[in-house]
């Protein structure tokens, strides 16, 4: 189970990189980031982390509140 949490964090990490790269990087004239691209990636990452933390709080509350919502019965 521990290993699974690690794995899921890694998935989130990869997803975050992909999203911020896709949203912030649009030129391929050089092989390093332009200054504004770098700043955009930085803000995007911070925003996403704050967003995830907030969702995480809500998720925990909702989970508690209504513990009957689960996967559909097979």
């Amino acid at each position, binding site marked *: 189970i521990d290993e699974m949490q690690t794995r899921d964090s890694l998935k989130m990490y990869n997803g975050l990189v992909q*999203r911020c790269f896709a949203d912030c990087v649009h030129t391929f004239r050089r092989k390093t980031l332009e200054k504004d691209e770098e700043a955009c990636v930085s803000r995007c990452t911070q925003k996403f982390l704050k967003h995830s933390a907030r969702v995480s709080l809500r998720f925990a509350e909702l989970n508690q509140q209504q513990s009957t919502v689960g996967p559909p019965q097979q």
Partner: protein
Amino acid sequence: MSAFGPLGGGGNGGGAGITDAQRLKALEMARNEMEYRVDLFNRLAQTCFEKCSEKRYKEADLNVGETSCVDRCSSKYWQVVGMVGQMLGAAGANGNVQQ
């Protein structure tokens, strides 16, 4: 990602008299439950990020509008999880959905 909470953790202790196959099966079940919740969390987070965040990323913080949007979006998403769950349950109970 403490949101997922402890999973109860039973079965993993590896008590006496449990065969390897049983332990493997219990692990597999806990894994499914866990994967389901993580997948749900990730999809909720992604979907609400898309719905609520402006794509310019002018600031690193969530502004007031974005914050309340996230709260409402999470809550509505949860409601849809419940609705779809009920509909799937009903479809399952009726045998099948083959039209």
